[in-house]
């Protein structure tokens, strides 16, 4: 994604992909994103999402949010594939708060590791994660 493609200064319209095998949690998180005027896609299956991202070269999404313990696929494998191939910021989220899990996620390329349940502050911060990644790309241009 090119810097010049960025159409906005404001967080509105940030395109987010949320992946969680639990539909209750997915629904809550998606609604929090709507509140921030983000544009959200959701999926309960990580493998399909990966396929979709590969097919579209990650052109349509700016940030990905994924549950750390998905049932269809290892979330850390998903993380590695996305960060290596598609280069979109990935945030992991989990109901567990172990330091080792957090470190594991960051080491494997996650931008952040959020403890569930998420709140609106987390969602607002997605925009910040995205901006940081853009800054990094600018720096290395």
């Amino acid at each position, binding site marked *: 994604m090119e810097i010049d493609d960025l159409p906005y200064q404001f967080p509105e319209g940030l395109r987010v992909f949320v992946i969680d095998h639990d*539909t209750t*949690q997915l629904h809550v998180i998606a609604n929090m994103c709507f509140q921030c005027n983000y544009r959200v896609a959701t999926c309960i299956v990580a493998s399909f999402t990966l396929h979709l991202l590969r097919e579209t070269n990650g052109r349509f999404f700016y940030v990905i949010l994924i549950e750390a313990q998905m049932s269809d696929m290892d979330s850390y494998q998903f993380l590695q594939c996305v960060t290596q191939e598609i280069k979109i910021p990935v945030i992991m989220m989990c*109901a567990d708060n172990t330091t080792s899990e957090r470190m594991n996620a960051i080491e494997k390329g996650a931008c952040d590791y959020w403890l*569930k349940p*998420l709140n609106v502050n987390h969602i607002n911060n997605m925009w910040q994660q995205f901006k940081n990644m853009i800054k990094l790309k600018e720096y290395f241009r």
Partner: protein
Amino acid sequence: MEKNQSRMQLVAMKQSFFDQGLLDEQFIQLEELQDDVNPNFVEEIVILYYGDSLRLISSIEQALKERNLLDFNKLDTLMHQFTGSSSSIGAKKVKAECNLFREYCRAGNIEGCMKSFQQCKKEYASLRKKLEAYFQASWVLGGSMPLQVKKIKANP
């Protein structure tokens, strides 16, 4: 005048849920997502939660039937999802029981698992009844009816 009294009763009912430790701040987060566009959001999420988690609960029940050959990893994974779900609606006591279950799981304590799961189900059922009463009372007050006036189903 009567409406004001009913409104106060509703507020008191909700406050009691917080005072008894049944719900936490996450429930308030959900309420803040409710607006004119989404007037029944909280109730919809609660209905979704009770619908979804039935499957999880029966999977856990199935797994616990193995008695002395419990697959603790599987149990922990199932309970991990149930914990996340419960915490996302602010079900504080249910979440606490889930965490206790997971501790017993990690310790390989069969007896502990059985007992805490019973507690889990008890808190889960009790919360459902209380929330049903709460939502019913808020309709009576003239809140909008949810699109699907679905009574939350009892456990089979």
